[in-house]
């Protein structure tokens, strides 16, 4: 089934859909411009704006449901942005609204959580301003009706991410991580930009509707080129190989940021881009789609392997995020049959990963901001709500039967298996590793003996932090079944992204599903042997070559350093030297040569302007006269 046509603006909530973006933007503006005057109530204002945006998103959603499925794509044009090139407008359709609900819903919960988490921070208001800015930019990204407006949101979330990773900018590591994230993302943005150039040149437009309509008639080479360049953009934003290296460093940001931006929403923007452009550029066959699946599988394995070796709870979760987005990418590369699974996993991951990150934040809160899991242990008795909600998130991510991940991840694996068995089995292996690293994380944190630093007295977090955890945990339980059983999401998304004529059937028990479960159980059991039954050493053992490989993030940073950073530094030094000595020296030397000696040059240089002007005029007159007399022209 092809995507439906884009119809006109029906008014109502959809007509004022731009409020979703403007409200949080207003929040950011008030909090930033208001300065210290807004310190007292700034965080409430930020929460209010996020919630208001959620309400608008919900109203839009229900209005959309009121239309027949084929009439659920609505264009809302706003104003002429760059005349002749791009307008500012929204595309309200099942895909964008699903994202809007996720962003504002999970976003609001994380805003609320942050009231408690950041309560001791002197700059809490600024934090909320940036969070609001992020929500606005992210909504523009998913709601835009053309690639240029999307790009504005795309870089806007990059800015918010930069500001929030570096929120504690007085820490050099945080400042460096923020800059790294921005620069690596810009490499991806380069790809997205060039893709937009090709679209504009080939189709004369950057609007989704026109681009998708005209793409069919374009040569395969152009389509593949656009696809690969879009993928480069997606890899940057979604921390997929080879642009993954920034995400682990991004954990320098406050934990709610890691939950919202670097787990639930922003890092999934790459998946959005691929699915949104899917019908035209990633149809599930051809080079671009194949490369998407390969990138997805490579990243899901790499992220999972990194996750096994980290002792920093946030970095372990970050590896896991990379890996889970790898699953989404893999699904997105499968074409219409995979889009809905990609988005279903994206939504349920948004809940359970936000849940896990906020749970980790709650643990850190209790442990004086300690992140080293080797200094945790036995926390389940002290943080009961955190533990229960975290454990639910854990079961959801490893794919425990009937919880979210079970439905969404299994859907991806089964669909991949039909498409390409090698990729499918690799995805199964990834699930097994997930079982291991997540179990390791849970055992090290909540089970075993306390290995706390002296003076640490763990305490449960306040209600303003635990309630979001509870709500997210509920989402982690029910969302998978809700979205997958009966192909609910696939049918809903159909008008926006297309879907296969024959809907896939859900098998509660299948050979591949059983194999996956067995591997996950094996991984969990091995983790229990190593980290549950045995005592966890307070200092990490040296480990094998493989362990070091994983601890060093598969040498991603080393590779970047050797390939780009060091040559870049040399190039910079060379260029500066050349500029000072080479060009400038040449010019000065030339001037000195003409003037006779450098001593004379100095004398000339201290001369009067009018004598220069005079000599120039005289010289020019002579030259022009000679020219005229000779008459060669």
């Amino acid at each position: 089934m092809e995507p439906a046509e884009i119809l006109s603006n029906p008014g109502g909530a959809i007509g004022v859909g731009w409020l979703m973006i403007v409200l949080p933007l207003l929040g950011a503006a008030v909090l930033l411009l208001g300065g210290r005057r807004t310190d007292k109530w700034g965080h409430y204002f930020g929460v209010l704006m996020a919630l208001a945006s959620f309400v608008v998103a919900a109203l839009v959603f229900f209005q959309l449901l009121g239309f027949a499925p084929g009439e659920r794509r609505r264009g809302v044009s706003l104003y002429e942005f760059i005349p002749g090139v791009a307008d500012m407008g929204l595309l309200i359709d099942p895909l964008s609204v699903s994202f809007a609900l996720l962003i504002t819903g999970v976003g609001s919960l994380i805003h609320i959580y942050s009231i408690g988490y950041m309560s001791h921070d002197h700059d809490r208001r600024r934090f909320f301003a940036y969070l609001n800015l992020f929500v606005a930019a992210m909504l523009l990204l998913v709601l835009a009706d053309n690639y240029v407006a999307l790009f504005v949101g795309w870089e806007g979330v990059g800015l918010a991410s930069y500001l929030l990773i570096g929120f504690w900018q007085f820490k050099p590591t945080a400042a460096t991580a923020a800059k790294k994230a921005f620069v690596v993302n810009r490499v991806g943005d380069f790809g997205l930009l060039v893709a937009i150039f090709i679209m504009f040149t080939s189709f004369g437009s950057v609007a989704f509707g026109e681009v998708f309509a005209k793409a069919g008639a374009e040569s395969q080479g152009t389509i593949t080129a656009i696809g690969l360049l879009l993928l480069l953009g997606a890899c940057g934003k979604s921390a997929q190989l080879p642009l993954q290296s920034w995400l682990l460093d991004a954990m320098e940001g406050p934990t709610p940021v890691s939950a919202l931006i670097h787990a639930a929403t922003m890092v999934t923007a790459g998946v959005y881009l691929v699915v949104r452009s899917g019908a035209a550029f990633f149809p599930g066959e051809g080079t671009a789609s194949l490369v998407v699946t390969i990138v997805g599988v490579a990243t899901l394995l790499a992220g999972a392997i990194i996750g096994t070796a980290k002792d920093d709870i946030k970095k372990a979760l970050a590896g896991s995020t990379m890996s889970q987005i790898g699953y989404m990418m893999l699904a997105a590369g499968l074409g219409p049959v995979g889009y809905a699974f990609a988005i279903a996993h994206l939504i349920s991951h948004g809940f359970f990963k936000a849940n896990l990150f906020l749970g980790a934040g709650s643990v850190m809160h209790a442990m004086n901001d300690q992140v080293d899991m080797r200094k945790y242990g036995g926390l389940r008795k002290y943080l009961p709500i955190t533990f229960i909600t975290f454990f639910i998130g854990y079961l959801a991510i490893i794919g425990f039967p009937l919880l979210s991940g079970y439905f969404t991840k299994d859907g991806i694996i089964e669909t991949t298996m039909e498409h390409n068995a090698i990729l499918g089995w690799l995805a199964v292996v990834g699930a097994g590793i997930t079982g291991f690293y997540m179990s390791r994380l849970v055992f090290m944190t909540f089970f075993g003996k306390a290995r706390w630093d002296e003076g640490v007295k763990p305490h449960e977090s306040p209600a303003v932090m635990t309630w979001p955890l509870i709500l997210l945990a509920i989402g982690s339980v029910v969302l998978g079944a809700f979205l997958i059983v009966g192909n609910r999401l696939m049918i809903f998304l159909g008008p926006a992204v297309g879907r296969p004529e024959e809907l896939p059937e859900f098998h509660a028990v299948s050979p591949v599903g059983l194999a996956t479960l067995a591997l996950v159980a094996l991984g969990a059991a091995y983790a229990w042997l190593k980290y549950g039954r045995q005592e966890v050493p307070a200092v990490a053992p040296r480990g094998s070559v493989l362990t070091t490989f994983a601890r060093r993030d598969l040498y991603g940073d080393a590779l970047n350093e050797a390939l780009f950073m060091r040559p870049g530094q040399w190039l910079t030094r060379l260029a500066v030297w050349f500029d000072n000595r080479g060009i400038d020296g040449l010019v000065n030397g030339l001037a000195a040569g003409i003037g006779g000696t450098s001593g004379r040059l100095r004398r000339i240089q201290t001369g009067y302007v009018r004598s220069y002007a005079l000599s120039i005029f005289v010289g020019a007159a002579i030259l022009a006269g000679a020219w005229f007399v000779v008459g060669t022209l």
Partner: protein
Amino acid sequence: MPWLSILMGVSVLGALGVAFVKNDKLAKQATLAVSLVVMVLTIVMTVQFSPNGDRFQFAETYDWIPAFGVHYAVAVDGVALVLILLSAILVPIVVLASWHDAEAGKRSVRTYFALLLVLEAMMIGVFAATDVFLFYVFFEAMLIPMYFMIGSYGGAQRSYAAVKFLLYSLFGGLLMLVAVIALYVVADKGTFLFPQLIGAITDPTTQKWLFLGFFIAFAIKAPLWPFHTWLPDAAAQAPAGAAVLLVGVLDKVGTYGMLRFCLELFPEASAWATPVVMTLAVIGIVYGAVVAIGQTDIKRLIAYTSISHFGFIAMGVFAMTQNSMTGSALYMVNHGFSTGALFLIAGFLIYRRGSHFIADYGGVQKVAPILAGTFLVAGLSGLSLPGLSPFVSEFLVLVGTFEKHAVFAVIAATGVVLAAIYILWMYQRTMNGPTAESVQTMPDLNSRERWVVGPLVALIIVLGFFPKPLLDVINPSVKETVTNVSVTTPAAVAKEGQ
């Protein structure tokens, strides 16, 4: 209404008045008042401009040297108009920012401010001139106030920088003078009026020689790689306000000249030179950015970023598509605001600490959050972040260039990555990290400084989301240029004939 003459007249009379005021404070206030009057008048004029009317509006033509067909002829098209608007908005901001800049030395404070107003008149004149000889006169005369502003009020190596600036510019000016005279002689129309000279030179060889005369002068002024080495010295040694006008406005005369004079007077030669110019432009984009990354001095760093940006402008001009040229014209305006903000805020920073060197700073964000925040916005505009005005122009330049010269556009687009490195690394080294001891007591922006920075930041953001008003003015004039350029090339003429 003779709008353009009024604008120049007010500036010149203001300068005279300021020069004779006895009291320095009064001189400053008078300068500010005069520049604000000019700004308001310019805005009123802009509102009266009808974008889809005649190409040249507010025209005035008087004989100046009848024997040679030299006129005092001024008028504006959309491109000239937005550049005059840029100048008129920047001058009061610069005046306010330079309040204490001239006090450090022993030189006269009021002379500095009088020079600023003289410079303003000349900036308006150079963009408004529609007589080629008059343009040349303004082009050269502009150097004089700027020479004194750098040479008398600049940093430690001001004389070296000022003389280097002057020598380079005069050398270019000399070539242009020859070309201007030759243009008059060869065209044989007995006039220097620009509209009458369009299409006057038909011989390809002559076009090439004349083109080179104009182009080299503009390439030095802009400056284009490899003619750029005077700029970092001049910009670093000039007082911050003068640096803003130098890089923000004066240098634009170079790229403006390419768009207006090189392309329209010598279209075939321009087409002939396009591969070379675009290569130089793209080298400049990447080279300027790479050298900027390696700078240790804040002002030199900003100067090198501008060399990279001028590469974008020149590339857009010579790509000769509607989008690329519109983008370039808009780029000239946006770059003026963006780099203006960067130079001025850097100037405030340097004034507080007394050092140009990045290494002398660190952790300023903690003690002066407003200074740091506005510096970040200005910096982000320098890396063309979407939502800020330079993005629109850079995007138009790139997408327009891509239509005809994809490879150049793709190489140029790597500049977006390099820009992120040079801006954010500078920001990190100055503003982030532990607060350096020497900046512990640094005060945040005072209210005068906020009035300097506020309007610039507001313009950058508003034009980032609503560039339409400027584009609507620029687009029709660029269309005229496109027509003039393509109609007069042989291919286009052949096409017309069919």
